[in-house]
């Protein structure tokens, strides 16, 4: 196998037709290169997206009310309705599978003008009413101060937690926002915390551009009665979110006199389902990558097989002589298979290295690109795992063997006399 004569022979066979060997090798090179680049890009996309949502509670579901679409119990269709604070305890009692349940209310940005003022600075931001438990569903990093706590809720304190963009536009960079006051829609609130979102899932506006008030404070200050705009729920461990989702819908509809068959009145998003869909999408991308990659590779391998046939045709006499002076069929087959494997493996290895090199380059460019606060690239760490690289290499060697099979069997069909007779 490692006899120098053997390698000498391979080298000579390939070097005899440099251009043709190169073009053939390019087919394999391109196949594996594409495979690696595509697999890496798919991974990059997946990494980018899942880093954006990874920390979000996967076992969560969200609910919000819409107009009813069916008449029920004397109410006509098209009725506006709201969930209310009483629903929280009601749901906790009726649906024991619930782990956390938090309401969330919003005040719109009034018109196009600014709703938040601090001294001479002002801005237009989303204002949300939140519960302490909300960060257990959509985690946030507290950069300064704290998040809303139970005392804020109980005492309806006029405090607020701001996002990074809010800080940037209303404060000087070196200023400490804690203890400062913001006038939000005419009412003053003391800043108690500065947060940064850990996910890229945004509910009614990005967290960076949002101000969170204690839920109870918001109800009272903005005259919302006991309305609840939005409900976030997580399921206990081991319970599928869809089970909780269905139960919550059932009980809410019952309590608010909505037809059980009304699909429009209570809207919901099931994150678990979304995650599943997403991973399905990525699986699809991966499968496509391999199909296209293997297809391209196959074309390259067929090229190798083809050139090996040509080489054998040209070397008919040489093979005949070798057989006449004692080369067994095994020697000849081994030689041709090895040539084919060497050609594919070398070409493939170059393609593999260049593919990985390109991914690394792209990764460096992405990482060195300046990113704004909270702006994560949707495409990060494009890379292929060692497993993929190794299996690609294994595929190459196997492909090389396959490519050599037809030419090798053709070569041993050459009878020494026929080869020698060709004068």
């Amino acid at each position: 196998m490692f006899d120098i004569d053997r390698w000498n022979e391979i080298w000579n066979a390939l070097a005899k037709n440099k251009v043709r060997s190169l073009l053939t090798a390019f087919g394999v090179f391109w196949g594996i290169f594409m495979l690696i680049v595509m697999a890496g890009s798919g991974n990059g996309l997946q990494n980018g997206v899942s880093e954006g949502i990874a920390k979000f509670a996967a076992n969560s579901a969200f609910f919000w009310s819409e107009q009813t679409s069916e008449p029920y119990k004397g109410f006509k269709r098209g009725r506006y309705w709201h969930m209310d604070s009483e629903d929280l305890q009601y749901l906790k009692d009726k649906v024991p599978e619930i782990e956390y349940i938090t309401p969330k209310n919003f005040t719109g940005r009034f018109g196009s003008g600014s709703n938040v003022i601090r001294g001479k600075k002002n801005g237009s931001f989303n204002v949300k009413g939140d519960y302490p438990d909300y960060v257990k569903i959509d985690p946030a990093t507290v950069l300064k101060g704290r998040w809303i706590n139970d005392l804020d809720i109980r005492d309806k304190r006029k405090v607020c937690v701001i996002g990074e963009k809010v800080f940037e536009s209303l404060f000087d960079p070196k200023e400490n926002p804690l203890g400062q006051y913001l006038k939000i829609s005419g009412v003053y609130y003391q800043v108690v915390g500065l947060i940064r979102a850990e996910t890229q899932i945004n509910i009614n506006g990005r967290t960076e551009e949002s101000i969170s008030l204690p839920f109870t404070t918001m109800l009272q200050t903005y005259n919302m009665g006991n309305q609840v705009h939005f409900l976030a729920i997580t399921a206990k461990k081991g319970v599928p979110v869809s089970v909780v989702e269905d139960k919550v819908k059932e009980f809410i509809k019952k309590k608010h006199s909505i037809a059980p068959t009304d699909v429009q009145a209570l809207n919901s998003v099931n994150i678990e389902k979304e995650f599943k869909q997403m991973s399905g999408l990525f699986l699809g991308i991966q499968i496509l990558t391999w199909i296209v990659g293997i297809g391209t590779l196959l074309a390259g391998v067929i090229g190798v097989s083809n050139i090996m046939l040509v080489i054998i045709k040209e070397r008919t006499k040489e093979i005949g002589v070798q057989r006449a002076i004692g080369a067994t069929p095994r020697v000849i087959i081994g030689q041709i298979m090895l040539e084919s494997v060497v050609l594919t493996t070398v070409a493939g290895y170059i393609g593999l290295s260049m593919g990985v090199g390109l991914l690394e380059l792209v990764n460096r460019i992405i990482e060195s690109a300046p990113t704004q606060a909270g702006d994560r690239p949707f495409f990060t760490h494009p890379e292929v795992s060692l497993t993929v690289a190794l299996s690609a290499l294994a595929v190459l060697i196997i492909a090389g063997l396959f490519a050599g099979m037809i030419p090798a069997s053709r070569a041993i069909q050459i009878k020494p006399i026929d080869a020698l007779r060709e004068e």
Partner: protein
Amino acid sequence: MIQISNLHKSYVMGHNSLHVLKGLELDIEEGEFVSIMGSSGSGKSTLLNILGILDDYDLGTYYLGGKLIQGLNETKAAITRNEMIGFIFQSFNLISFKNAMENVALPLYYQKVSRKKRNQIALEYLDRLGLKEWAHHLPSEMSGGQKQRVAIARALISQPQIILADEPTGALDSTTSFEVMDILKEINDQGKTVIIVTHEHDIAAMTKKIIRLKDGVIEEVIKNGDLQLFKDRVRTE
């Protein structure tokens, strides 16, 4: 060394069958120097191929060195060829990208002799044929006579019992032809059986026994003593 009896061989070409060898009987003793002659179509190439285990035969028996050569598979045939027969071809058939030494060493490569050892042996054989200085030259850098001497060295290196030469002088001028024949004679003097196929009478006349084939059977065997007679006849022809 070689005992052939009732040898039949026919080639099938489409619907036609060409009966080439028709019950050939042949005995060649060890140490003989034999030439096989015959016009084209007489079956001499076929006979040579069968002698060289390059081709199988249909009927009869062929013993080589006491061993029945019949229905061997390719692997066994290759090994037998490698061990028992040295081939010399008309067009030399050296491997173009191997130098003289590597070409000579090739049969030993198939015997799995180590590179160092087989190259050393190859050098000895090249030296015997006066080509030591050419050991590292490629065939393309050598003259026809030199190439044929390399081929002879290659045929000898596995120490076969018989040397089969197919028109060994066919591609050479007459001076070189006689040189090559001298070498073959020398090899024969050292006790090896040498069989050459040729259509040149003066080359055949340098061997010790001439077998003339015609239509698939032996027409005439001219032995040592009668060679002078044959030579005279050649001159008049």
